[in-house]
Each structure stands twice: as C-alpha cells, then as structure tokens.
C-alpha cells in the first residue's frame, strides 16, 4: 500500500506541532509528510518572542529539535511559500515552482498582525511584532531612537512593551479601550495592572485613538490622537490584534467566514473534505483563536482522524495565566459577569498590590469567571473548578481570600479533581495522563515533563501537576530518590544516625563502610556538618579541612574576588562605643570596606587570606568573638530595643536576645538559622520571619517557629503562647536538636517542618508533649553542645598549625596580588573593566 501524502502549509507553532503529533502517532508509517515554510527558518516559539531581547537567540527559540525532520522523513521547503492550491487535482504549488500532490492538505497559515488604517502607518519606524525578522527590524530602529510606542494594550501588546523596555527605549502603551487587556480583565484588575506597569517605567495611555502619524520634532515620528494630544516617538509598534491569513484559501475557493477566517467544522475540515485548517487561520463556530493551546488541540483532532480515530474540536477555553513584565495576570472564563444576574466577589489588597475577583452563578453554586492580578497562584485551582463544573464551597470568597491562619488549606486538593480534568492546556494533558505517567514509572516532575510535556508550554500548570504527581506517588507508597549524591545511597538523616550509632568521626571510615568513591563537595560538606553537629570538633581540625567549604576552612565568607568578610558576633545587636571604635580602627588599619548588614552586625569586607589571623587577633583582644557568619549555624538574634527604652515594650527583648544568642551560638545545623525577639506585637525585630521568633505579651513570650525571609519568604507559625524564659529554652532546645537530627542537607526549618508528616501539630506533639520520649535526650545533647562551645577564631589562633594555612602561597611569603578600586571613600573589588581601564590598584597603593 502506498503512503498517504500529507501536505502542511505553514511551519509556525501549530503547523510544527501537528507534524510532531503525527510523527508520534501510531500510524505514522502510513504517511509521507511535506511542509512549506515561508520564513527562512523552521518553527520557533512566538509566545516568548520578547526573550530575544533579553538574551535568547533565534536558535534558542526554535521549536524543532535538530535533525527532527530529516530523521522522520519529513520534507520541508524552507523559505518557500505555498502560492496555489488546486483542489480539483489535489496539488499545491509554491513560489519556487514546486508542485506536490496531496491526499490530505493541512492549512496552518496562521495570522498576520492587524495594522489599523491610520495615515502614516507605513512610515519609517512603524513596525509589527510577529516574526524574528520583525524583531531584527525593531533592533535596528531602537538603535537609531530613544522612544517607542506600542499601539494596543492587549496581551501581545504588553509582551511587545516588555521588548521595547529590554531594548532600552522610553516605552509607552496606547490602548483604544478605557483599560488594559479589555478582553481578559475588568476595570479593577486592569487599573492595578496599569499601576504596576507604570511603576516599571512604562507610560500607559488608555481611551486613545490614533488618527495620524507624521514627522516628529524631537523624534522620528509624532502620533496625533483624536483628543488632540500628541506623542513624539521613534518607533510605533502595532499590536492591535491579529487577522487570519486566509488569502490562499480564498483564492482556492475554500469557504471563509463573513469577516474572514477559513471556515471549519468540529472535525477541523474546511468546505473541501480533504482540506483541514488548524490554528489562527481557522474560524470555528464564529471564533478565531489567537492562543496557541486551541491550535494544538485542533492539531490533535486532525492527527486522530488521520489515524482513523474519532475526534472533534468543540471550542476552547480562553483562560490564560501569564507574567506580563513581571506582573502575574490571569483571566478565567467570563470575568465580566455578562449574565446580569451573576454575582461577584472582589478582594483587593492595596499595600501588596493584589487584585482578585470571582464571578459566580446567581445561586452561588458554580464559578463563571475570575480575574487575578499581582498574585495568580489560585489560577490552577479556580480553572479546574470552572472547567469541571465543581460545586463551590458555601462561602465562595474563601477561594480568593488569603489563608493567613493556615487552617483552610487547599479547598480542593488534587484528589478532588476528576481524572478527565485537563491540567495542562498547552499540551492537553489530563489528570488521567499524569496518573498513567506515574504508573509508567515517572517519579519526578522532570520525568513527567519529558513523558507528557505537561508544564513545558506556558508553565502555568506546574504547581498543580506537581501536587497531582506527589499525591499519586504518595498513594503508591513510592519512595523518591533521596540519595545524598553518587557517593552515598543515604539521606543526610540516615548518615547522621549511622555516624551517631557507630561513633564515626572521620570521612574515610564513613565512605569506606557506607559509600563509594572519594566523595564530592556535596557529601563532604554534609558529612563535615554532621560531624560538627555530633562531635563539635573544631572547624579547622585536620580531619575537617578536606570536608569543608572554603568559608569554613578560612573562617570567613569568600567574596567574589577571593577575599573574605570578617563578621564578629554582636549578640542581640548590642554594641558598646568602645567596641565600635575598635572595629573602626581595625577596618582603617587593614583598609577594609565597612557595612552594616541585615542581621544587626557590622561587616568588614576585603580581608586578604594572609591578613585574617592578624585582624582577628586584634578583634579578639578587644573582646570580640567569631560571628560564625561563614557556618551553617546560628547567625544572629535580631532584637528591637525592648522595654528598657521603648514606651511600648512589654519585656526586655535585648536581654532575651543576648541570652538566646549566647545559648545557641556555634550550634552547627543543616542550614543557617536566624532568630528574632520583639518586645511587643509591633514586632520591630521581624521575629515572625525567623527560624525561631519570640514576641513578648502581657503574659510571657509567644514562640514562633520555622519562618524565613530570603528567596521564598514564609511567616513563622505560632508554636506556643505565654511561656516563661525557661519554657522557651526547653522548647527551643528540643526543637533545634530534633531539626539537626532529622532534616535533609541544606533544608531550612520551614521546609523541614512542611515535609514532616503532620507538620506543625506533630512538631508540637514531639516538643511540648514529648510524644517520642526524646525530650530529655535532646536537651542533654544541647547542653553538651553549649559546654563544648569554643570561639573558632580563638582556637585557630592558639594553634600555629592552623594559622600556617592562611599563607597565600605555600612556597613564598609574599601575599597574592589583589586589586581594588575606591568608591565613596572605601575600597571595592576591581572588575575586569576596571583592570582594563587601569584604575585598579593594589591595597598598598590606597591611602
């Protein structure tokens, strides 16, 4: 049997996706595929076009894996446009004169940008935003000018505005409608979006109709608006919507819609039963879909039919979630409440710039639509509720109100979704598909992405898919690979117990008995940390040197130029004027850069390795000790000024902070730890953003645990209330030791608690009610830690073997050359540019 000949006109995102799907389909051996691509390159990602200006290349944007067409026998005609279709004889002819017969023809000709009929719209600097060639033209104009205007404040227009910002232009957006993204957003959401985008330096003009583009005075062009106002600009970028490319179909006699678009039925067939149309060129039920996901669905429908499987396209949901210039925006269903009896709920958080609205049926039972701006985390949840027609909770506003006390949890967990629920709309992946992937052996999100493609399009579904994955794994009792690294098939917790039970105190013994190879920076540091926690050996002890990061080995944090920071401990942030003077003197003598850091301490930067012992000798003589800022250990205990001075303070937070810091200093832990003590609920010490936080009340201390700032901020949870100081110490002793014993490598307390089965309640049970009977043991272990505490630097300076290691070179006494530049009266590391410019000098040349 001879192969069926399939010809695809258009190699855009949807045309390529069709071929990918056909190649992957069971019956691919029965087909011979030809495709025409009018652009000089194969399909690329138009959704992320603006990333071309933030560093991506045309190759990075390509959707076609190198060799994909060749390996699968697909004949592609690049840079050759199809110009004629003979539906009688079933042939396609190209501009270059190629004529090919087809059995089935797929039109995937896409769309073109609509340019409003404005006088002067073809002037120099007037461009559209669609292809890589368009991007190159934008670059060229941007190089000649300084101002750019995007005409159109829709989804694509705002993407284009990001491109102009990245090109370094003063950027304006001009929208005809009274608000941004008029289709997807309501007034409230659009107003917030406008405010946020304007904060990024983009000027937004709404309710503006452009009537003329003409010669500018300060710029190449000038736009004139219907209200008489004018705007000088070099570039005018039209992004006012798309129009289906249906000219070829029209000439070939295929039926079009009254306002354009190739008419298709639910099978994506055109008026000729051997010709299909998919993507933005197609008109289905009066709709042209300008998003990629419906195009991909249409491609699947056609592939199924070619494989003799029934399939139909019945319209697509236009809900979208995206990040526009860093702002999360999502729109679901009908956000305008076009049904006049529809009810709506709005949550607006001014300070945090969040806007959320849901539209529900008059009986309050079903979700009709939603708008989210500033925080689109609820998108997955809300979309599933709407698509699966799920009943809403009694108070639907619970879906968008912040869940501050943590009691509500997910109203609809992954298990509540039906298997048919579509999780990834870009690749049409359902919950059932994820379950199948897990059945087939997928254990990680990376596996799931590779197998199902879920989450590899817009990425909006990743959180939801991860939740489903974890829930399914859990149901199957699957253990996720938690090996520390290739040298140890154990978790940190397991290694901790092995070392403790077998009293192992050196790496060689451990790896010989329980691992393979020589180790790497991952396991060596983890084991070094375990030894420090268990045996409190000195950081510079010989057996530890090969196990530790440079920060631990040189008792300072290495900076980008190879110098170190010097951070003495300042317990509770309290420091005497005499000590401040010493810091100033030492910094002056060694020409160090001085800064107050976020932990209420003073940091001296730029210390060279060979100077560290001398610097610390002077600091120790003045009564300082190591701040251990280089270690996975307690950093600082931040405090407010407390009841001693403050009119509002209820207790002496400074004394409490100093006692806490002295109690837990030097305690090595899986990750750094921070603490805070506030003297009243005004919370000036930000204790709720710390691993351990105390806030004074009328009746004692409230203890908060497992919070953190940083990359993923998390508020601490209230652990116990109205405690005495003794109770605080008891609970914190137990909690921290339990953390050190059971946490994974580099796991902060927040993640650790979230990963404990039972979470906060379980931890309260272990610590407060001593449910495991470990209380006394944990307290005793903490007491041993405190008794064996020694200032790292004091110990280091006592031993000449240690100080020897701070020599710059093993064979000569001279220090390593280190270059600096002076800035605002202090030094900073010299950059490569500074060195080339000849302004970098050695420290001895600095006055």
């Amino acid at each position, binding site marked *: 049997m001879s192969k069926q000949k399939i010809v695809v006109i258009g190699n855009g995102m949807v045309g390529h996706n069709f071929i990918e799907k056909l190649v992957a389909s069971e019956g691919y051996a029965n087909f011979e595929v030809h495709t025409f691509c009018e652009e000089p390159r194969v399909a690329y990602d138009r959704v992320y076009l603006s990333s071309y200006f933030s560093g991506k290349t045309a190759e990075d944007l390509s959707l076609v894996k190198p060799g994909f067409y060749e390996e699968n026998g697909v004949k592609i005609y690049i840079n050759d446009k199809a110009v004629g279709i003979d539906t009688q004889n079933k042939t396609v002819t190209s501009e270059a004169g190629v004529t090919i017969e087809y059995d089935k023809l797929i039109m995937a000709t896409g769309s073109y940008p609509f340019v409003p009929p404005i006088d002067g719209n073809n002037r120099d600097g007037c461009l559209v935003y669609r292809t890589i060639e368009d991007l190159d033209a934008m670059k060229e104009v941007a190089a000649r000018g300084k101002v750019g205007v995007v005409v159109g404040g829709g989804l694509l227009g705002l993407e284009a505005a990001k491109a102009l910002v990245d090109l370094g232009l003063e950027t304006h957006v001009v929208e005809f409608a009274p608000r941004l993204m008029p289709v997807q957003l309501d007034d409230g959401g659009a107003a917030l979006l406008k405010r946020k985008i304007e904060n990024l330096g983009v000027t937004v003009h709404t309710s503006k109709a452009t009537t003329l583009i003409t010669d500018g005075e300060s710029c190449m062009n000038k736009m004139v608006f219907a209200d008489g106002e004018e705007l000088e600009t070099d570039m005018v970028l039209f992004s006012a919507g798309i129009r289906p490319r249906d000219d070829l179909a029209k000439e070939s006699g295929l039926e079009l819609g009254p306002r354009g678009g190739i008419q298709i039925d639910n099978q994506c067939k055109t008026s000729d039963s051997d010709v299909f149309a998919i993507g933005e060129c197609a008109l289905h039920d009066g709709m042209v879909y300008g998003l990629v996901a419906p195009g991909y669905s249409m491609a699947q429908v056609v592939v199924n039919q070619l494989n003799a499987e029934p399939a139909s396209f019945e319209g697509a949901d236009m809900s979208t979630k995206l990040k526009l210039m860093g702002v999360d925006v999502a729109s679901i269903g009908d956000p305008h409440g076009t049904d006049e009896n529809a009810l709506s709920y709005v949550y607006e958080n001014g300070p945090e710039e969040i806007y959320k609205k849901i539209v529900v049926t008059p009986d309050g039972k079903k979700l009709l639509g939603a708008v989210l701006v500033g925080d689109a985390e609820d998108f997955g949840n809300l979309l599933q509720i709407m698509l699966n027609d799920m009943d809403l909770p009694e108070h639907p506003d619970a879906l968008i109100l912040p869940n501050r006390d943590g009691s509500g949890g997910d109203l609809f967990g992954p298990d509540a979704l039906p298997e048919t629920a579509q999780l990834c709309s870009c690749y049409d992946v359902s919950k059932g598909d994820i379950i199948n992937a897990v059945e087939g052996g997928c254990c990680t999100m990376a596996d799931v992405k590779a197998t199902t493609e879920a989450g590899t399009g817009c990425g909006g579904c990743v959180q939801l898919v991860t939740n489903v994955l974890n829930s399914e794994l859990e149901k199957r009792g699957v253990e996720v690979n938690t090996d520390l690294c290739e040298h140890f098939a154990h978790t940190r917790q397991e290694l901790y117990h092995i070392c403790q039970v077998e009293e192992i105190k050196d790496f060689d013994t451990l790896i010989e008995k329980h691992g393979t*190879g020589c180790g790497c920076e991952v396991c060596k540091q983890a084991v070094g940390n375990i030894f420090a926690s268990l045996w409190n050996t000195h950081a510079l002890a010989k057996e530890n040197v090969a196990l530790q990061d440079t920060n631990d080995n040189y008792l300072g944090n290495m900076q980008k130029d190879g110098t170190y920071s010097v951070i003495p401990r300042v317990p509770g942030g309290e420091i005497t004027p005499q000590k401040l003077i010493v810091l100033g003197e030492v910094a002056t003598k060694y020409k160090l850069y001085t800064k107050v850091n976020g932990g209420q301490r003073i940091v001296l930067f730029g210390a060279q390795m060979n100077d560290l012992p001398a610097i610390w000798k002077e600091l120790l003589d003045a009564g300082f000790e190591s701040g251990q800022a280089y270690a996975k250990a307690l950093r600082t205990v931040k405090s407010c000024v407390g009841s001693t001075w403050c009119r509002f303070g209820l207790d002496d937070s400074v004394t409490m902070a100093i006692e806490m810091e002295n109690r837990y200093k030097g305690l090595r832990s899986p990750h750094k730890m921070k603490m805070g003590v506030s003297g009243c609920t005004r919370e000036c010490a930000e204790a709720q953003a710390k691993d351990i936080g105390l806030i004074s009340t009328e009746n004692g201390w409230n203890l908060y645990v497992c919070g953190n700032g940083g990359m993923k901020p998390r508020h601490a949870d209230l652990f116990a209330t109205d405690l005495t100081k003794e109770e605080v110490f008891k609970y914190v002793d137990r909690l921290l030791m339990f953390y050190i014993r059971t946490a994974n490598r580099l796991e902060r307390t927040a993640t650790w608690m979230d990963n404990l089965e039972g979470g906060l309640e379980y931890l309260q049970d272990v610590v407060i009610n001593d449910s495991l009977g470990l209380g006394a043991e944990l307290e005793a272990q903490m007491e041993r830690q405190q008794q064996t505490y020694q200032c790292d630097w004091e110990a280091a300076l006592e031993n000449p073997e240690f100080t020897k290691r701070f020599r710059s070179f093993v064979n000569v006494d001279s220090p390593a050359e280190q270059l600096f530049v002076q800035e605002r009266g202090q030094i900073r590391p010299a950059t490569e540019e500074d060195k080339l410019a000849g302004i970098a000098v050695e420290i001895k040349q600095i006055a």
Partner: protein
Amino acid sequence: MSEFVQVCSTDDLVKNSGVAALINDTQVALFYINDEVYALNNYDPIGKANVMSRGLIGDLKGEFMVAAPLQKQHYNLKTGECMDVEGVSIPTYETKIENNQVLVKL
C-alpha cells in the same frame, strides 16, 4: 622549554585538599589526592578570581575533580576541563614527587 621546578615538600600539602603556590609569577593550585599531586592554574575562569586552590576536591563519575569555591563548577583534575560548562577549561601542569619534594613544570 620549561623545566621542573621544586616547589615545596609533601608535608606542606594537605591530604585531599589544595594549597596555592607562586611559580615564576604564575599562581598554581596544588591538590593532593590518592598520594598524587595535581597542578592547575589557580585562576577560576568563570568566577574570575585566583581561588581554585581553595575548592573542595573529590571524584565525580570516576574522575578526580575540584569544585570551584565561588560557584561550584567542577573541573577535571587531570585535564582541567570544566565538567559542567562546555568549552571552559583551566591550564594544567605536569607534576612529580621526588624524595618528598613536589616538582612542577610550567
């Protein structure tokens, strides 16, 4: 053609760790692992600082390596090739140990 230069004694090295040496104005990182000495230029081509001697060493997939202390890229101790970023490498130098003395040829 350069010659082997005597740099230090093996007692000056730290087992399973690194030290820096200055040989004819070139900063060299010396690593002591498995009773052998490996010599690489001390300059981290990605972090752009003379810090390689202060990296942790070990093995990955059977090859001895050093992890750059600034951003933790791995470099093969024998070839100097970066194991994470293609096309990046650090110059390596021949070494030998004679009578407990470490010799390096630049």
